[in-house]
């Protein structure tokens, strides 16, 4: 598989764009014409050839630009990457998992050569060729988690498992949908889920926690989550709200198709063998509504989902103000025809 990496930006002139291939492989998250919050986990064991589910850590045309954007965010705010002192071993787990997976899944892009603890890592797209000693932090330019996640798309939460709970004790978070690592660091599973509405659904969280605590080394899991963003911006963090918050008000019926984006997170969950921690990558995919509606099934369905979404969820997802305009735009692509089950284009 050869990938041509886009030259594009996620800020300023927002030159981010999806090729025809990227549109077809977009992880559209709705398998029916309505949406209700659920935990919807499935095993993360590959998927349709060419889809974002196929590789363990999907690499796509946005890879190089996304890593450049991460470097900009980190240079402005180093606190977006943190690791509490007891999480170093888990960081090596993360590095090992990602390097071995990428070298196997994309042999033309990445290579890993291991001679005992002497490792050589080649990352062709980013022009990296480093030799280091596994488990010796002094031989890398950054801590192990930071080193490898500066080279891997998506945000990463690294969770420590203790006291029957999970603790957000390390992470690399530069493309978050409005949450803050600096605020959540050191919190447990229930504390960091606190802003979700409908406390009555607490039972869902208890079940989700139990599920996560039981994830085993050979059985990673995944789920999709979604929200909406104006402009293809990765860094929509609370810290930079003044920069992107006002953009919500720049939407007009004329520019909506181009500026309003569906933002889908592919979340996966991995047991880390050496530390018994959990890795929680949150990979973000962005698609403009005008690109989304080029798949007729998605245009129809997305209109129905957004139109019928309960008020509190639309507020929670941050687009309640613009909903009438969005529904109006999408209605032009919904002829009322029935849609086929499942998420895939017809």
């Amino acid at each position, binding site marked *: 598989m050869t990938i041509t990496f886009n030259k594009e930006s996620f800020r300023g002139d927002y030159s981010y764009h999806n090729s025809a291939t990227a549109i077809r492989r977009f992880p559209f998250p709705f398998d029916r014409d309505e949406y209700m919050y659920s935990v919807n986990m499935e095993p993360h064991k590959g998927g349709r050839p060419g889809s974002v589910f196929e590789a363990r850590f999907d690499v796509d045309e946005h890879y190089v630009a996304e890593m450049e954007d991460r470097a900009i965010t980190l240079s402005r705010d180093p606190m977006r990457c943190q690791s509490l002192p007891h999480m170093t071993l888990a960081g090596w787990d993360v590095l090992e998992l990602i390097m071995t997976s990428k070298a196997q899944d994309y042999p033309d892009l990445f290579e890993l050569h291991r001679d005992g603890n002497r490792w050589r890592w080649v990352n062709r797209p980013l022009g990296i060729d480093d030799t280091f000693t596994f488990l010796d932090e002094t031989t890398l330019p950054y801590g192990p988690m930071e080193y490898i996640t500066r080279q891997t798309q998506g945000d990463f939460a690294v969770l420590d*498992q203790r006291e029957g709970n999970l603790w957000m004790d390390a992470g690399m978070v530069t493309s978050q949908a409005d949450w803050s690592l600096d605020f959540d660091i050191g919190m447990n599973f229930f504390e960091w889920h606190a802003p979700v509405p409908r406390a009555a659904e607490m039972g869902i969280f208890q079940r989700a926690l139990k599920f996560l605590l039981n994830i*085993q080394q*050979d059985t990673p899991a995944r789920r999709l989550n979604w929200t909406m963003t104006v402009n293809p911006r990765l860094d929509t963090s609370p810290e930079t709200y003044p920069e992107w918050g006002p953009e919500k008000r720049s939407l007009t019926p004329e520019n909506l198709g181009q500026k309003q984006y569906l933002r889908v997170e592919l979340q996966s969950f991995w047991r880390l063998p050496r*530390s*018994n921690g959990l890795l929680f990558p949150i990979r973000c995919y962005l698609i403009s509504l005008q690109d989304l509606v080029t798949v007729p099934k998605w245009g129809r369905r997305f209109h129905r989902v957004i139109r019928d979404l309960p008020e509190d969820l639309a507020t929670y997802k941050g687009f309640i103000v613009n909903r009438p305009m969005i529904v109006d735009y999408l209605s032009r692509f919904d002829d009322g025809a029935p849609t086929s089950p499942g998420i895939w284009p017809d």
Partner: protein
Amino acid sequence: MIQLRLTDKTPLSPRITRFRFQHPDGAPLPVFSGGAHVMVEMQDGDILRRNAYSLISDPQDGSGYEIAVQREDQGRGGSRFMHEQAQPGMLMRLGQPVNLFGLNLTARKHLLIAGGVGITPFLGQIPELDRLGADYELRYCVRSRDEVAVDLPGAQLHVSDEGSRMDLDGVLGAQPIGTHLYVCGSARMIAAVLDRATALGWPPDALHSEEFLAPAPGEPFDVHCARSHKTLTVGAHQSMLEALEAAGIDAPWLCRGGACGQCETDVLACDGQIDHRDHWLHDDERNRKIMPCVSRFRGQLLTIDR
């Protein structure tokens, strides 16, 4: 489950034997974390047994997995199978490593208390603690010297028939704030250590214990599986989970020892008394849930959601 070859069988003490498993092609096995166990599958005649054993080899060494098994002549037969029938060269199926007894790496100090064969989970943790340069204290308690399975230079050995029993209150009282306590051994020993620690004011989150409950035998009983429309009899030496599996009913499990919560099952009707033997359910759940890996039932009929 992975198929591995038993490559070595070495007695460590009169009752404890070490078993080493390696990949048949020599491929490396997944590394793990100290305190993890594996499920070992044994085809014992027409009975399929699955027993959990702590991994005692260095967690970072993927060249093989080692376990230590103490022979229990009164047990259900798993340890007898390992001692008598498992022979080097045999292929056996093992599960992935699972850790329900991990170290809390935020601890200032780790106090490890082992009773007899309860030393096994600590054997995986010691290399890890050494590598981290962590502060730890290991107390290894046995009844007599011939029970000692491993020579541990860093451990303080307590041999009760030589009069060097551990002074529990003294040990618990001498720890700095921020110490975490880990205890593994017989049910009685675990209860005694945890009771004393609690009485001395140790915070509950600093107390960790592991006891593999072997599903104890009991009277046979009947269980109705509502979802699969089947009624089964659980034999005296069989667990309810084993009975479900033998009947081809899909039931989840992880530890098979009442500790992980994975097999939790809803009770739909109960004409009798549930004999709860797990470490998982809260008191207020015990009238509507059961852990089929270890718990049993006395009465007319139990109806479960499987």
